């Protein structure tokens, strides 16, 4: 599986080229800063620096861009933890436990856990890529609409676990989210719920809606609070506690590995990537954890699950891009654009003929992940200062930055208008105890499921038994049912044990 001579020549390529290294640290820093700005996505950060790579050699250019990719992948979790703002859809699940941890004064640990989970996630996913680049890419080609529906439904099962204490409110919120996800023109060409607004034809802008639901609504609820962290002694920024967060990751290797595996596999699937993998990993970790009921209240395992999955999606997405020449998302599309700028065409032939360069990119990413632990720790240290800022200053400032981010994503006032509408909706829903996160997950998965369900329906000609001809989809369903059965059994066992103790 590993082409050793090519790996050797990749090592010599990297060790003899200073150019390949000098762009790593600036790339990581740019990625961290841009990723931490709500509304500036990973692909946007990469698009901004793309012109600068025109005058670099091919390898340094790609290494620079992947450094930005790696940095921005973690950068997005900083506002997710500190302010509950998922700057990108891949950081949604990080807010579920990261933000409650920050509110409890455990922002240092949450950010430390997120950072180390991200770094290890990147490392693991590139290790998978190093060994399995070709088989992984071939497996991706087997993911058709049936398999995608299975993945989407697996994600939807999570909605049940976001319901909190009231199942009906959880399902109501999730149903609303799914319906929001179906607004606009579907793949069959039917236009629904656009209210005559042209920009709704493409559907509700997802990221502004998400920021509105999760962050802006929370900020309204904090208007009468003085600081993000109430207790003064908890507002300290401590390197030791950031590192403690890192140690938490090492204490939960199972969560980490599961997240990295889900991230690499889902990340490799074009069009899905990290936005779904973080939710699946979170759901699976919550379902299998003995302390699953504490998820959503500041359980670090939730942060680790989400961050390990979204960061390892990078390796998966790179596998698809390098082996097949298919961009899984915006970030890998930019990388392919950089390939084209240097007259290089990605795909099977590129891998066959330039295996040393592929290995050099992978090895450089190992180094990036290690460097990110150092640079990211410094970045977290500086970014954590936000907990010391009074909320009366922070709230209007964050709302302005979120509004500008929403504009930046949509390129029109559609972003800010969506942000406002969903901020008010989220504020009202959370006032009455509805899990706003369920609306977000429904919104993210609604469109995916509808699109893939339609494709599957068309392929099957309305015959539901057609799924029997899709073993991968059946395997995903079987795994999902098995995991559900195990969690129900564990819950029952836990309840019996609790009953035995009380008796």
């Amino acid at each position, binding site marked *: 599986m590993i082409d050793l001579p090519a790996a050797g020549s990749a090592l010599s390529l990297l060790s003899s080229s200073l150019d390949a290294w000098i762009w790593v640290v600036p790339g990581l820093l740019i990625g961290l800063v841009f990723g931490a700005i709500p509304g*500036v996505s990973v692909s*946007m950060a990469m698009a*901004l620096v793309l012109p600068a790579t025109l005058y670099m050699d091919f390898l340094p250019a790609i290494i620079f861009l992947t450094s930005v990719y790696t940095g921005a992948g973690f950068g997005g979790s900083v506002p997710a933890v500190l302010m509950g703002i998922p700057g990108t859809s891949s950081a949604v699940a990080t807010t579920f436990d990261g933000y409650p941890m920050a509110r409890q004064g455990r922002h240092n640990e949450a950010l430390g856990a997120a950072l180390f989970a991200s770094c290890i996630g990147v490392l693991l996913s590139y290790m998978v890529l190093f060994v399995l680049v070709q088989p992984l890419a071939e497996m991706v080609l087997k993911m058709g609409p049936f398999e995608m529906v299975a993945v989407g439904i697996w994600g939807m099962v999570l909605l049940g676990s976001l319901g909190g*204490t009231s199942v*009906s*409110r959880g*399902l*109501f919120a999730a*149903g*609303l989210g*799914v*319906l929001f996800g*179906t*607004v606009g023109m*579907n793949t*069959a060409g*039917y*236009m*629904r*719920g656009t209210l005559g607004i042209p920009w709704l034809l493409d559907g509700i802008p997802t990221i502004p809606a998400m920021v509105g639901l999760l962050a*802006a609504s929370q900020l*309204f*609820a904090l*208007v*009468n609070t003085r600081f993000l962290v109430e207790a003064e002694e908890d507002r300290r920024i401590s390197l030791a506690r950031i590192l403690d967060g890192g140690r938490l990751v090492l204490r939960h290797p199972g969560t980490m590995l599961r997240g990295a595996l889900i991230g690499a596999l889902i990340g490799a699937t074009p069009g899905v990537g990290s936005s779904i993998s973080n939710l699946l990993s979170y759901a699976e970790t919550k379902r299998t954890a003995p302390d699953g009921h504490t998820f959503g209240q500041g359980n670090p395992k939730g942060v680790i699950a989400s961050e390990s999955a979204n960061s390892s999606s990078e390796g998966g997405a790179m596998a698809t891009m390098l082996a097949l020449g298919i961009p899984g998302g915006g970030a890998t599309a930019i990388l392919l654009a950089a390939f084209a700028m240097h007259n290089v065409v990605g795909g099977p032939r590129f891998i066959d003929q330039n295996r040393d360069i592929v290995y050099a990119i992978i090895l450089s990413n190992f180094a990036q992940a290690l460097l990110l632990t150092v640079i990211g720790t410094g970045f977290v240290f500086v970014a954590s200062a936000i907990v010391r800022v*009074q*909320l*009366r*200053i922070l*709230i*209007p*400032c964050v*709302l*302005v*930055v979120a*509004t*500008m981010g929403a*504009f*930046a994503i949509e*390129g*029109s*006032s559609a972003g800010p208008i969506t*942000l*406002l509408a969903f*901020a*008010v909706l989220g*504020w*009202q*829903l959370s*006032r*009455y*105890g509805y899990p706003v996160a369920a609306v977000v997950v429904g919104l993210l998965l*609604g469109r995916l*499921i*509808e699109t893939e*369900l*339609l494709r599957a*329906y*068309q392929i099957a000609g*309305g015959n539901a038994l057609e799924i029997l001809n899709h073993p991968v989809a059946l395997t995903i369903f079987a795994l999902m049912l098995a995991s559900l059965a195990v969690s129900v059994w564990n819950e029952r066992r836990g309840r019996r044990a609790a009953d035995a103790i009380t008796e």
Partner: protein
Amino acid sequence: MTGQDAPARRIAWGHLALVTALAAGVLAYLIEARAVSLSPHNLLLLQPTAILVLALWAVIAWGCVRRTAGASQDGPEGTWPERLKVGAMVGAFALYIAGLETIGYDVAAWAFVLAGLAIGGERRPLMLVLFPPAFAAGVILAFKAMIPYPLTTAIL
């Protein structure tokens, strides 16, 4: 629990109004979608989900009507001045969004930060005078440099 100390029932009007408004929106969406086409290609996911939401509305609305006083998660908390402050912040944010394209993103941001600080209780004159324009200018100039689209501004 004996009949004597059974808690009194009180309809949760606020919650009922919210959930009913949302359900009405869902019903309107379903009717509009069905008017577009009754084809499964149009309603495959939308219709069953909408029906599920409407059924859940009935469950939740029944809970709102049958609610006992003091039940948890049944409404907003806080004193009236606190609620007024939150309402003022939401109102200011809505005005800010509404004004973006008309008065420009720069002036709107400056005015909203000023209003937000005032609503939050900031009373230091220097902070109110210097911080909002400085912050608005910093953010607008940074985004102007980053984004490829034209941004409506009045001054910057």
